[in-house]
């Protein structure tokens, strides 16, 4: 796990922040690039919340309904 985090941190540090103009955002605005869960992940996130002890920070359900089955 630490190796994955290190590689990820290294990759991020190699990318420099640029001021990207609106007309340069054709790739950033691609639907697959959205920084949110997809519509089809909605129920996947819900069952993962029920079957695992963790929740939150993924745009999924964080409350409402017991999930006790």
């Amino acid at each position, binding site marked *: 796990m630490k190796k994955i985090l290190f590689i990820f941190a290294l990759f*991020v540090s190699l990318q420099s922040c*640029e001021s990207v103009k609106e007309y340069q955002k054709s790739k950033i605005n691609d*639907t697959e690039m959205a920084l949110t869960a997809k519509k*089809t992940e909605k*129920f996947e996130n819900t069952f993962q919340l029920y*079957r695992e002890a*963790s929740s*939150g920070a993924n745009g999924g359900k964080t409350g409402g309904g017991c999930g*006790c089955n």
Partner: protein
Amino acid sequence: MKKRIITAAFLAFLFSQQSKAQTDTINSGYKKQKLKIEEINFVSSYYTQNGDNSAVTGGVGTEKLTDIATNFEVLLSKKDSKNNIHSFDVNVGIDSYTSASSDKIDPSTVSSASYQDIRVYPSVNYNFENVEKRYALNAGLSFSAEFDYTSIGANVGYTKTSKDKNREFSVKGMAFFDTWKVILPIEIRNNPTDNDANHLDTKPRTSYNLGLTLSQVINKNFQMAFLADFGYQEGLLATKFNRVYFDDLSVRSEKLPSTRFKIPLGVRANYYLNDRIILRTFYRYYYDNWNINSHTVSIEPSIKLTPFSSLSLPYRYYMQSAAKYFDAINQHQLTDEYYTSDYDLSKFSSNMIGLGYHLTDSDKGIFHIKRIHSLEMRYGYYTRNNGLSSHIITLALQFK
């Protein structure tokens, strides 16, 4: 058939209202713009699982469960005279499930092989966006009801976007006020094993969440989001129909502390590798005061087949430590203050692989139906190293 006719009539009504709103806008001008429908989303999924660690029967026994979930969402918006955008998100969800383990709470009263229930959860959210000053305010209400559980939720949020629109910060507060109707296992209904609750008592559970998100465009191909979702729960957090068998073979109802504090921290990073491949990645670290630590990693390469369609191959790995109150059947001691044999709170790791397909065509529409703007399908196969496995298939349609 009747449901289909009602759904078709409802959609026809919504679209006729949309056309009317657009006509009114043209005739009466900018200031009198009415609400118009931006999009309608329909999402439906079928989920099935099996395993041999049911919490109802003390950590042994079937966990067979099926769930059909459907969600219907309508997004409406309008601009006011100052060019501010007002948006409404109206949502209704219905889950229908059968759970074999729920039969075991009181086997004598259930005639079928599985216990059934339906959960209904409507919600409404309002968003105000000041385009000139680059901020948004939002608020919402939600409700959820099933046989033994109701939940009322409220949320408020604030979003601020940077001048160059490359950075965005948002904060969101949520509160859920839930009520349990306590159901105890049949053999201890007349003799509860703790002071938490008696059979058919109503008990509260309250959850508070504070979510913080910072998203940043790194360059033309790469953007990231950092997420934190602090959570606090109080009230009846144990599921009282779950059994726990002790080392002297006696049985009690699950007992857990009345408070829980959660800290999940996540990061999303999406990279446009080239004109054919986009990489979606996610990592989350989670800690709570029941001593659960977890790591979640997911990666999803998305491959563009044509300008309008793509195929994705999601993979997710998850691992968690056990809650300090968990033990297997016949392992708990009578001196334990809190106890559970729910394997969702045990130490395990899981893998999920899947396949997704996305088709969009705003000109011709999907299947040459102009109103259907996009179609998305996704399948996932999930396995846990303690034997539980599941399948989920989801269909999402977007109408505009």
